[in-house]
């Protein structure tokens, strides 16, 4: 069954996480290479899982919270592969793999429920909206992790106290370049996600914009990232400030994704057991 692929993917991500943590401790590239393989296997397994669920229920399977967690993990790992190929920053895996594993474990903790059928789920705009949104989320999650790495490294250099990470983390310049790469690739995806979301809303609900809490918070997130990008390009908000911004941005984004979906009521709300549908 499709569930088998899910658990296999979960195990692969966990293995990848363990190997990548061993890599950052032992600094032996064998661990990162095998870890990358494990993540790759997990990614393929999860893709198979998603495709099978899609055929089973007939629509893109990202409509409730566990599915969102799962898809978030998928998008994060996918983003990681792209950045790994582009920047070849192995140590990034030591941060990404555990996060992906945690996301998938979170997804697995929810009780299995029967999936609702709504005609709007069958719209072509749902997958376009969701995929661009989540790839954007994945990229901003990477930006968040890179920001954390930057602050750790910057602190070591500023305070002149070199701990465990100093040797293991790359140069500030490289981390900042990665931060910038995330911003310029994540922002268009976020924008695309919002535009296609509006179109999707128009097609399925008859209005582009309904001041739904998720819409409002997404707009706030979008404005925030737009401001970062602007400041970075004009005033030169780079280095420490850019790292902090990436962390703040992702925190807001996470709230939009988790908090708004579960705490506030709106049509984006996740269909939690006993919650609003």
């Amino acid at each position, binding site marked *: 069954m499709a569930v088998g692929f899910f658990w296999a993917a979960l195990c692969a991500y966990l293995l990848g996480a363990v190997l990548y943590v061993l890599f950052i401790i032992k600094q032996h590239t064998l661990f990162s290479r095998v870890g990358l393989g494990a993540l790759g296997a997990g990614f393929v397994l999860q893709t198979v899982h998603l495709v099978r669920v899609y055929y089973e229920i007939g629509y893109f399977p990202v409509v409730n919270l566990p599915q969102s967690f799962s898809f978030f993990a998928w998008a994060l790992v996918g983003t990681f592969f792209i950045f790994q190929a582009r920047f070849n920053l192995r140590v990034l895996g030591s941060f990404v793999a555990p996060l992906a594993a945690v996301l998938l474990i979170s997804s697995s903790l929810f009780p299995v429920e029967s999936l609702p059928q709504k005609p709007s789920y069958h719209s072509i705009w749902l997958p376009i909206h969701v995929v661009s949104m989540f790839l954007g989320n994945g990229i901003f999650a990477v930006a968040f992790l890179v920001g954390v790495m930057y602050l750790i490294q910057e602190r070591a250099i*500023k305070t002149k106290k070199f701990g465990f990470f100093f040797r293991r983390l790359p140069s500030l310049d490289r981390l900042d370049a990665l931060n910038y790469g995330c911003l310029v690739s994540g922002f268009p995806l976020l924008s695309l996600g919002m535009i296609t979301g509006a179109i999707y809303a128009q097609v399925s609900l008859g209005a582009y914009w309904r001041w739904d809490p998720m819409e409002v918070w997404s707009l706030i997130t979008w404005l925030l990232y737009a401001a970062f990008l602007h400041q970075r390009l004009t005033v030169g908000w780079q280095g420490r400030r850019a790292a902090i911004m990436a962390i703040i941005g992702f925190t807001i984004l996470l709230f939009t994704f988790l908090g708004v979906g579960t705490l506030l009521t709106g049509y984006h709300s996740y269909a939690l057991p006993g919650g609003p549908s």
Partner: protein
Amino acid sequence: MNVALVGMNHKTAPVELRECIVPPEEGPTQVLARISEIHTVGEALFLSTCNRVEALLAAESPEAAVRDVTAFFLAHPEARSKDAADFLYILNGREAVCHLFRVAAGLDSMVIGEPQILGQLKEAYRVGLGGGFCGVILNRLLHKAFSVAKRVRTETGIGTAAVSISYAAVELAKKIFGDLSAKKVLLIGAGEMAELAVRHLAANGVREILVANRTYERAMELAKQFHGAAVSMQEIEERLKEVDMVISSTGAPGYVVSHKQVHGLMRRRKNRPLFFIDIAVPRDIDPRINDMPNTYVYDIDELQGVVELNLQERKREAVKAERIVEEEAVKFERWLSTLDAVPTIKELFERAEEIRRAEIRKTMPRLASLTPEQIRDIEAMSHAMVKKLLHHPVAFLKEPRRHEENRQRDLIFVRRLFNLDDPDQDTLIDAS
């Protein structure tokens, strides 16, 4: 055959002693030649650097060889007057092997993990090889030593951390900027250490070097060396806009670069990182600059602190290296011990061949009617019998042993079994 080592190093003896055990008028090649002339010495290698004087020996009787070489070292009257004997170390067998491996890997050096010693050891080996003073054992031992050094370098981080101030500065620059090839450096003042740091940065490919100095001539002179440009001291503030690193070492009593100057600058620099290396005493760069975002200031004490930390790091890595050394020394000893079986095996074959010939000689006259082919067949048959009978005893002797004592015991046993040590008795048996 076993190996031994006699010598003194920077830890055991002061430099006055290290120089006087080697006659100053003789080069290492002559000294090695004279050591090799000592009849108890089988193979020899002589290593003489500013931190150590050592003779590595392979001999049938290492004790005798060590005794004679020690006497040779102490022959110099000055050495005797200074009681040089008390400062010598004498190592045998595994200890000598371990020591050589440690020396090769830089574990015995003043600055742990420094790579020069390996080159010096290679040079000493080249001399030994050229003069024909190194044989089977030392050849193998030295090649092992070189591969141990390589293993230590690749498997431990012993050589990675910078242990000089100027290297530490470059290491930090790399952690801030990553690739240094597009970076611009401003050198303020022309101290020796600052120059060294710039030299390292230049070796790491920085794009451009600017030099500012109180006397413009000196600035021009230095700038020429680094293919850079000279600037005047008044220009510094303006130039701070464009450079990425500043190395300062002036004799100025106050700060050459103030907090205010840099504060006004960062916005115009679009917050590009700026790294100050302050090697001056008193300091040239206001330390508060370090508190601004994207600026980093390291003074001489802080760089020294980095060096200390790195030295500790090297010491930790050295523990791993010691394990590799132990491991490889055990392997070498095992090889050496299989070598000890060789003379016995050779004797065993000689003994058997003697008996075979004697028996053929005794039998042939009674078989006069044999054709030449038949004689050859009998010869071949007897050869095959000897070979087959000795096959297992030889294999037994060549087996690796866990303990050296076991090998000694087995060797004695085999020698008694085949009566190799008292061949005269055989004639008695024949006579009876």
